[in-house]
């Protein structure tokens, strides 16, 4: 008998004060994990990589996203595109390592070649030795599968199913809220980059990120200047949720050095910082002088890699003069995110408790987290409905 994975999620979609969180199976069950891969991650705009990893024309970056082979590449016009990294001939992986493609992508198996636009350019010997054409090989039908993609805040978002609304429509609210930050995000390299491997389902990292309730307990260092009452919820049903602070304080280096600000920010951003989980798997943070983006890469139902990149507003911030301050900034964020590791790993272990019922939300404090649960439940329900049709 096959065990059903269609759990009743109606308790999850109730109002926060009477809702339960997602059932344990959504964190520890392989079948549910597989279902969420399609319904939650592939069917929406998921973060799959960073545009800074393909800075020049021809740069390519293979990515394995939940087993789906993707190729992020920058074309000759400087546009970042995402293709399925699979040859149309025998299904061979096309690009194994990060690098620059000078001409075409040549399949390492039988050397079918694709342009940076994905178009099939040559099919050697398909009609016999030295004959590269055949009436049944129609190159215009055999280009690489392009995956819909969009770059926002340095993150390459991809909608693998191809069925989500356009990114600009799906995230119109956030784009409007953060329109002040619609400017180049500059990255300085290794000193602004780190990753954390955590033993938890990827959703727990989202859930922890988007609420401020835990801050005084888990990040006591923040208490001195950013108290719980200085924070506010960010809740946009079906889109994103998170938290903001009214008392963002710039990092100050020796001699009073601070990072240059983004240009033309509204006054609010003098002291505001906002931290949003862009559903499903991208965590963003914006402040007057730098931003950061975290892609949660699910490795298994109980393992996640957090890829963290910090971005700055001006080239001055990328100069040697700011090297120490950049390092300090990265270290500060890494310290904060490391403080969260035992929490997300502890919640993962807790979800093997057979009597755990998804949990009771704190009505005044857990709104952003509940909103994410509700969204996941809606995605899963929609996936189930589609499967039943």
């Amino acid at each position: 008998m096959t065990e059903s994975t269609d759990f009743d999620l109606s308790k999850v979609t109730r109002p926060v004060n009477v809702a339960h969180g997602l059932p344990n199976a959504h964190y520890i069950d392989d079948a549910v994990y597989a279902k969420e891969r399609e319904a939650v991650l592939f069917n929406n705009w998921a973060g799959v990589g960073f545009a800074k990893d393909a800075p020049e024309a021809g740069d390519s970056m293979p990515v394995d996203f939940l087993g789906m082979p993707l190729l992020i590449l920058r074309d000759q016009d400087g546009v970042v595109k995402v293709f399925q990294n699979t040859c149309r001939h025998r299904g061979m992986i096309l690009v194994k390592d990060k690098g620059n493609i000078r001409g075409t992508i040549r399949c390492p198996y039988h050397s079918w070649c694709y342009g940076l636009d994905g178009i099939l350019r040559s099919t050697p010997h398909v009609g016999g030795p030295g004959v590269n054409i055949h009436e049944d090989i129609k190159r215009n039908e055999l280009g690489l599968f392009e995956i819909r993609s969009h770059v926002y805040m340095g993150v390459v978002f991809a909608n693998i199913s191809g069925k989500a609304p356009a990114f600009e429509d799906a995230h119109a609210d956030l784009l409007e809220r953060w329109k002040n930050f619609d400017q180049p995000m500059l990255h300085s390299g290794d000193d602004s980059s780190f990753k954390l491997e955590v033993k938890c389902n990827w959703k727990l990292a989202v859930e922890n990120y988007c609420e401020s309730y835990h801050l005084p307990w888990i990040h006591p260092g923040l208490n001195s200047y950013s108290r719980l009452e200085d924070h506010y919820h960010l809740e946009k049903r079906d889109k994103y949720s998170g938290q903001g602070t009214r008392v963002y304080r710039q990092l100050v280096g020796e001699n009073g050095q601070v990072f240059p600000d983004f240009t033309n920010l509204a006054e609010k951003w003098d002291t505001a910082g906002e931290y949003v989980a862009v559903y499903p798997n991208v965590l963003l943070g914006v402040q007057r002088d730098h931003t950061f983006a975290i892609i949660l890469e699910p490795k298994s139902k109980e393992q996640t890699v957090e890829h963290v990149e910090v971005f700055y507003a001006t080239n001055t911030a990328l100069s040697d003069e700011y090297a120490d301050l950049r390092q300090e900034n990265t270290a500060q964020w890494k310290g904060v995110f490391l403080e969260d590791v035992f929490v997300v790993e502890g919640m993962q272990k807790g979800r093997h408790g057979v009597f755990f019922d998804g949990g009771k939300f704190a009505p005044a404090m857990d709104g952003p987290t509940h909103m994410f649960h509700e969204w996941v439940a809606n995605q899963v329900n929609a996936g189930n409905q589609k499967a039943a049709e």
Partner: protein
Amino acid sequence: MKLEALDTALLIAHEKNDLEQLVKLYRKAGLSCIDTNNVDAGCFYLTHAYIFALEGGWPEATEIHRTLIAYGREE
């Protein structure tokens, strides 16, 4: 270049993934076969020269492509 010497040079170029040399050697072999009216063998070699020229973004790709089209081997 004799066949044996060509094979050796090609193996070395393949080993090093030296695209420039691969294009040069395969193109030379291809044109030499065509000169002796061995069109099939010539187009075989030229195909390899073409593919490596495409991969490397070498300008020779255009001329080799034209030759292969002329012999009905490319589009």
